[in-house]
């Protein structure tokens, strides 16, 4: 079980090698398969998360939630996607047609590209990049541009306001998000995600960087546009934000990409603060990739828990909180971490 996927990959490699393919072609095919597997994982995960979100919200409101379509309502999202595919994709007359169509096509690319460096288990990372964290943050923030583009192209006031809010919110909260991660990077001295996980063998970084984790958590919720930071698509204010004009599958793509982003932020949190695929309390009989996924969905539950507990905050509160509270705190965190590391190195416990 532990090496299930690793063995599958090596088996595929030897099979291709025995078929007489050159090394480069083998690598290419294997990489293609890995990324395909990640794509399938993201899509299934997004479907599952919509269901999970509805169930969690229902349970928190003393309801049952979807339970009619399939066993326990598990096929509800599948049915919803089927419905959305069959619906008409309406392009508003005054919209910028090319950009409008490009939005839902591009929106899935940043999450997909980022997952290439996500370590799903021991030796289970598609591309072991030595600047993994940097790549992760750089590509993940690209989705801002795409959402803004969709909002602009819709030629609709709500879309435009939503798009502008996306830019404002994302840019302001990317700062504390990145600065909170710097503490972890100071401790490990590497940007490689697998290395960071290996460094947490003895103690998870949440215990060394509690403030960093808290800032990351808050900024992460803001980055994924979820309540209490869901100003971008606050239904009661601006209909659906940048996605107002999208119908059918275009809307579904944005919707699913949002959940892919939630997975993304959770994967990052688990990698940086919860020891990645390391089993807690020596429970190593459960495979590392199961541990990783368990932690990721635990994090996602936390996000859902936040969403169904807190009301939306105001725009000015959002900005004030980001720049006046989170940024100074994260800089202080870096400062304290640096001093701590320096002292640790000079004293050499």
């Amino acid at each position, binding site marked *: 079980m532990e090496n299930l996927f690793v063995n599958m990959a090596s088996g595929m490699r030897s099979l291709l090698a025995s078929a007489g393919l050159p090394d480069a072609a083998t690598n290419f095919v294997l990489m293609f398969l890995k990324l395909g597997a990640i794509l399938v994982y993201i899509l299934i995960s997004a479907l599952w998360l919509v269901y999970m979100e509805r169930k969690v919200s229902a349970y*928190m409101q003393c309801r049952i939630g979807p339970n009619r379509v399939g066993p326990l309502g598990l096929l509800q999202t599948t049915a919803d996607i089927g419905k959305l595919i069959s619906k008409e994709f309406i392009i508003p007359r005054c919209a910028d047609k090319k950009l409008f169509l490009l939005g839902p096509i591009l929106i899935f690319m940043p999450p997909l590209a980022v997952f290439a460096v996500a370590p799903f288990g021991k030796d289970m990372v598609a591309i072991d990049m030595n600047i993994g964290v940097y790549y992760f943050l750089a590509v993940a923030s690209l989705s801002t541009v795409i959402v803004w583009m969709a909002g602009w192209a819709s030629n609709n006031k709500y879309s435009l306001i939503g798009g502008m809010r996306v830019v404002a919110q994302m840019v302001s909260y990317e700062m504390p998000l990145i600065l909170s991660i710097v503490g972890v990077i100071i401790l490990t001295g590497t940007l490689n995600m697998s290395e960071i996980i290996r460094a947490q063998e003895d103690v998870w970084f949440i215990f060394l960087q509690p403030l960093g984790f808290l800032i990351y958590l808050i900024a992460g919720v803001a980055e994924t546009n979820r309540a209490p930071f869901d100003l971008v698509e606050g239904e009661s204010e601006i209909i659906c934000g940048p996605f107002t004009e999208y119908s059918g599958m275009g809307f579904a793509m944005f919707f699913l990409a949002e959940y892919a982003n939630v997975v993304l932020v959770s994967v990052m949190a688990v990698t940086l603060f919860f020891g990645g695929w390391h089993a807690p309390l020596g429970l190593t009989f459960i495979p590392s990739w199961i541990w990783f996924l368990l932690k990721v969905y635990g994090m996602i539950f936390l996000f859902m828990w936040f969403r169904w*507990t807190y009301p939306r905050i105001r725009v000015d509160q959002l900005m004030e909180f980001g720049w006046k509270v989170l940024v100074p705190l994260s800089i202080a965190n870096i400062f304290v971490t640096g001093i701590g590391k320096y002292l640790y190195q000079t004293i050499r416990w």
Partner: protein
Amino acid sequence: MAKGLIKGLGITLKHFFKPKVTVQYPEQRLPLPDRFYGKPEFYYDKCIACNMCVNACPNRVIKLETETVDKKKVVTKYDFDQQYCLFCGLCEEACPKDAIKFSKDFELTRYNRPDIKIEFVQPDQVERKKEEIKKAAAAKAAAEAAKAKEQEEQKPADAGEEGS
């Protein structure tokens, strides 16, 4: 501030594990109160066509038409235009014979507007009633005729006795 945030999380988590209040409607139903006014029911045989319900209705929902057969009123039409009914139960209260009653059936939605109107009286019911009345009248007439004949038969007998 942080204290309030954590308290809020505690409340939602507590509700997460609470028993759920949902009633799975078509399969499970909550018991209805005794005085519930649902779909009306009409008992054709009890109705005496007194028009009390028609007069009692504030919305003029009920249309009652009668036909007189052999000096007796026969209800030929009792239409209940339910879309205007406010379920006040005044018709039920007014009826001296309990011919109209409200049941507990509340699933009254229909696909088409004409289907909302309930036409209680079936033509065969009217026919049967008319037949019954005619039969009863005929029987009565026969009985009367028999009686008259008896009396007539008795009369000459009396006269004969008187004569002797």
